[in-house]
C-alpha cells in the first residue's frame, strides 16, 4: 500500500519520496488509472514471489549447508516430482492470464483512435517539436537556440508548447522529418514513436488544466536530451484564444513580406509562377522583376503592375489575360486583406532583391 499512498502526493520530501516513487504522481488520461492498477497488480505478485523464493533459498542455504566434513546427503532426498513441477508450471500460467487481459484491454484503449476527436499534427525534427492546427493553417514551433537552459522561466516561455482544450479527445498525427523520435507524456502514461516516411497516431484526453512535460524518448542524436516541449491544457475559452492567435497570419507573420512568402509557398502560387525570371512550362509569368513594369495583354491593351492589378488578377484572373499565356489560371486562393497585403509586399520585395 505504501507506494500507492505516497505516489498520490508529489509534494513530500523528495529524499523520502524517491524510495517509494513508482509511477509519476499525476494520472491524467483515461487510461492512466488502468495502467497504474495493472502495474501495481504485477508489482505485488512479483514482490510476493520474490520474497517467497528468496526466503526459501536463504532457508535452504542455511538448513542444508554442510555442517561438518564428510557429511553425506540423505540418499532419499527427492530428485524429481511430477506434482511439484506441474504445480509450478500451471500456477504461473494462471497468474499471467489476468495480466494479459488487463494489458490487452488497456492497450486497445490506447491504440484505438476515438471518433470525432480534435486533430493536431506533430512533426519531430532534430531537436524540436512542431505542432500544427487546423489542417496546417497554424503552426507552433520553438527555437531551441532561444532557450536559456539555466533559466526556468525561459525554458517554459521559449520551448514549443502544444495547447489542447480540456476534456476533449485529442488525436495526434505524427511524422518525423529526419530520424526516429518518440513522443512521450509521462503523466498520460502514453508514448508513441515518431517515424520518418510514415504517420503514427496517439490519442489522449486531459481531464485537468495545467502545464505538463513532453519528452522525446527515442534517442535522436547528441542533443536528444534537449528535445523537450510543454503541453498546456487550457479551458475551452483559453484554447480558442490560442487557436485564433496561431491561425492569425498577422500575428504569425507580422512582416508582410514573410507573410507573402508563406502564402506563395502554401497556397499553390508556386506551382505556376517562378521566382527566377523565366516562365514555367504550361504556367504563368514569373514574379521576378515584374513589379511596376508595364505588362501587355491578349486584347492589345496594357497596364502597370501595381497593387490593384495584383488583387484583380487573384480574385478574377480572366479579367486581363497576359499576352502569350492564355486562360489557364482559375481563382487564386487568397481572400483576406492581410493576405493580399502579404502577396503584394512579397512581389514588390522581389524587385528589391533583384536589384541587389
Amino acid at each position: 500500500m505504501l507506494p500507492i499512498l505516497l505516489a498520490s502526493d508529489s509534494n513530500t520530501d523528495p529524499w523520502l519520496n524517491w524510495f517509494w516513487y513508482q509511477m509519476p504522481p499525476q494520472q491524467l488520461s483515461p487510461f492512466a488509472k488502468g495502467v497504474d492498477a495493472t502495474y501495481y497488480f504485477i508489482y505485488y505478485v512479483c514482490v510476493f514471489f520474490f520474497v517467497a523464493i528468496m526466503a526459501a533459498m536463504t532457508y535452504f542455504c542455511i538448513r542444508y549447508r554442510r555442517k561438518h566434513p564428510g557429511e553425506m546427503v540423505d540418499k532419499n532426498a527427492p530428485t524429481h516430482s511430477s506434482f511439484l513441477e506441474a504445480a509450478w508450471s500451471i500456477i504461473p500460467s494462471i497468474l499471467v492470464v489476468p495480466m494479459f487481459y488487463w494489458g490487452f484491454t488497456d492497450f486497445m484503449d490506447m491504440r484505438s483512435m476515438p471518433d470525432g476527436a480534435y486533430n493536431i499534427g506533430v512533426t519531430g525534427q532534430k531537436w524540436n517539436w512542431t505542432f500544427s492546427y487546423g489542417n496546417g493553417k497554424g503552426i507552433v514551433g520553438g527555437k531551441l537556440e532561444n532557450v536559456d537552459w539555466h533559466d526556468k522561466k525561459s525554458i517554459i516561455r521559449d520551448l514549443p508548447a502544444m495547447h489542447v482544450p480540456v476534456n476533449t479527445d485529442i488525436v495526434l498525427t505524427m511524422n518525423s522529418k529526419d530520424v526516429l523520435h518518440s513522443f512521450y507524456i509521462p503523466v498520460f502514461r502514453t508514448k508513441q514513436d515518431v517515424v520518418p516516411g510514415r504517420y503514427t497516431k496517439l490519442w489522449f484526453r486531459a481531464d485537468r488544466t495545467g502545464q505538463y512535460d513532453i519528452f522525446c524518448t527515442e534517442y535522436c542524436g547528441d542533443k536528444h536530451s534537449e528535445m523537450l516541449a510543454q503541453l498546456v491544457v487550457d479551458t475551452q475559452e483559453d484554447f480558442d484564444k490560442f487557436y485564433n492567435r496561431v491561425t492569425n497570419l498577422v500575428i504569425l507573420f507580422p512582416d508582410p513580406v514573410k507573410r507573402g512568402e508563406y502564402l506563395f509557398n502554401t497556397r499553390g502560387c508556386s506551382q505556376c509562377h517562378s521566382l527566377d525570371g523565366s516562365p514555367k512550362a504550361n504556367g504563368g509569368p514569373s514574379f521576378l522583376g515584374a513589379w511596376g513594369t508595364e505588362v501587355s495583354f491578349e486584347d492589345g491593351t496594357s497596364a502597370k503592375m501595381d497593387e490593384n492589378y495584383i488583387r484583380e488578377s487573384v480574385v478574377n484572373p480572366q479579367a486581363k489575360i497576359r499576352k502569350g499565356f492564355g486562360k489557364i489560371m482559375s481563382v487564386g486562393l487568397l481572400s483576406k486583406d492581410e493576405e493580399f497585403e502579404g502577396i503584394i509586399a512579397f512581389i514588390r520585395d522581389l524587385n528589391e532583391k533583384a536589384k541587389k
Partner: protein
Amino acid sequence: MTTLVTSEETYRPAGEHHAHVDKRGFISKYVFSTDHKIIAMQFYFSSLVWLFVGGLLAMLIRIQLAWPWERIPWLGEKLFASTAGQMPPEFYTMLFTMHGTVMIFLVIIPWLLGAFGNFLIPLQIGAPDMAFPRLNMLSYWLMWPAFFFFASSFVLQGLNNGPAAGWTSYPPLSAVPSAAPGSGPAQTYWILGVTFVGISSMMGSINYMTTVINCRAPGMTFFRMPLSTWALFITAILQAFALPVLTAAGLMLLADRVIGSSFFVPEDLWINGEQTKGVGGSPLLWQHLFWFYSHPAVYIMILPAMGIVSEVIATHSRKPVFGYRPMVYSMISICALGFIVWGHHMYTSGMNPVLGTAFVVSTVLISVPSAIKTFNWLGTMVGGTIYLTTPMLHAVGFVSLFIIGGLGGIFLAVTPIDVQVHDTYFIVGHFHYVLAGGSLFGIFAGVTHWYPKMFGRMMSEFWGKVHFAMTFFFMNGTFLAMHQLGAAGMPRRIADPTQYEFLLHLIPLNKFITFMAFGMGLAQTIFLINLLGSLVLGKRSGRNPWHANSLEWLASSPAPHGNFESVPLVYRGPHEFSSPESPADYLPQWLSPAEVKHWRPGEDDSPVSNKGGLL
C-alpha cells in the same frame, strides 16, 4: 538412471592414445593454436580485457548522470580540454553506444560461448577436440578484425566523434552519414566490427553443433550430457539461425551508408538542413531485423549461464539436478519461444496493436519455462549438503538476480506498462539484472568452478567470497534503483537529466546509483587480481577438486592436448551425486559398475580447499 549397456565394460584402449607428446612450438601451441582449450583461453582473456574497457565506459556514464555538466576533476582536464572539463553530449552518446556494444559483443557472448563453449563441450562429451579445429581457430582470429574496428571507431575520429547511434543503431540516425557527429566513418567501423563478430560466432555455432552431434564419447547419449553442454548446444542452434539475419541487416545498413542504397532511409528526409537521397526505405525494417537477432541474443547470453549454474548448484549441493529432463525441455522451449518474441521491443514503434498483442502472448509464455528452471534450482538444493563455495555463491546469486530480471520482464511484456516505461531507466535496470546479474554471475560461477580444470590451480576462496559479496551488494544497489528512476519517467540515453524540474528530485538517487556503480567496478579489480594471482600463487589442484561427475574432471588439471589419456566410456548421467550405488557422495560418469566396487573415491584429488563456506 540405468547403467550403460552399449559396449563391453572391459574395453579400454588405454595406452594407445597416451603418447600425446606435444611437439608444437610456442606459436602453434599458444597463438595460432587449434586446441579448443587454448582457443577458449584466448576468448577468455580477450573478454576479460574488454570487460574492463566496458566497465570504465560505464563509470564515465555514471559520472555524467550524477553530476551533469559539472567539471570533472583531473580526468575532465585531460579529456575535455575544449569544453573546460565538462563532458560534451557527443562524448556521452559515444559512451553508452560503446558500453553496450563492448559488453554484449566483446564480453558476454565471447566469454560464454567462445570461452566456456570451447572449453566445456569437448571435455564434457569426452572428445579430444572440436569437430573442426581450424574453423575454431579462425573463429577466434576473426574477433581481431572486430577488435580492430571497434577500437578504431573510438580513436580514429577522436573520442567526441565515436559511433553514437546506440548499440541498437537505429536508422536513419545510423544510416545517413551526416545524421550524428559520430555517424561518419566511426559508424561504418562499428558495423564492420559487428559483422566480424557475427561471422566469428557463426563459425563457433556450426562447430559446437557438429561436435555435440558427432563427437560424443561411447555411451554419452544426449540425455547423459551435462546441462552446461545442453545449454551451449541449444544456444549454438539459436545463434546459427538468428545471427545471419543480423549480419545481413548489417550489410544492408552498410550499403545504405556507403553505396547509397535505400533499405532503411525513407524519402524526403531533411537532416541538418540537407535533403537525403533516400527513396521509400523503412526504418522499421531495421528494427524487425535487428530484434529478430537481438532478442534471441538475450537467450544466447542467458542460456549458457543457466547451464553453468545448473551444473554448479548440483555439484556443490551434492544432489542430482532436480528434474533433469524438464530442465532440458524448458531450455528448448525458451529457445523456440525466443524466436517469436522480438516484437515486444517495438510496442511503441507504431505496429498494429493486434500484432503487438500476439507478441504479448508469446512473451508471457516464456515466463513459464523460466519459472520451471528457477523452481528446479531450488528443488536441487532441498535436502542437499550445500558447500557455500565461491562458485556456489555466484550460482545462488545468479538465481536471485535472474528472478528480479525475470519478474521485471513481466512488467515489460504487458503492453500498456511497457508503453509507459519503454526507453526509460526501468528498461536499463531490467536488462542489467539479466545481463550483469544473470550472465555475468553465470560467468563468475563458471570461472571459479572450472578454474582448477583450466589452469590446474585453485582460486583464493577468501578473495572470491569478498568479490562475490561486494559485487552482489553493489549490483543490487545500482540496478534496483534504476527501476525506480524509470517508473518515475526518467528516459534513458539522455546526456543531461536536469532539463526538467520533473526529474530534478531524482538527482540524489542518480548520485546514489553512481556510488554503487563505483563500488561494483572496484570489486572487479579484486576478481582480476584473484584470477591472475592464482595463476601463480593458487594451490595446485588434482583432477577432481569438487568431486564432480562429468567427464572434464577425468582429464588431468590442466587438461592436456588431446584431453584424455584414452577414449572415455560413459556409464550414467552427469549428476549422480549421493547415489546409493556409490561409496562416496558422487559417482563419476566414466566409472563402470565393476570399477565402482574397487573405487577409492578421491584418490587422485587434491584436498578441497573450501572449509564449509561462508556460514
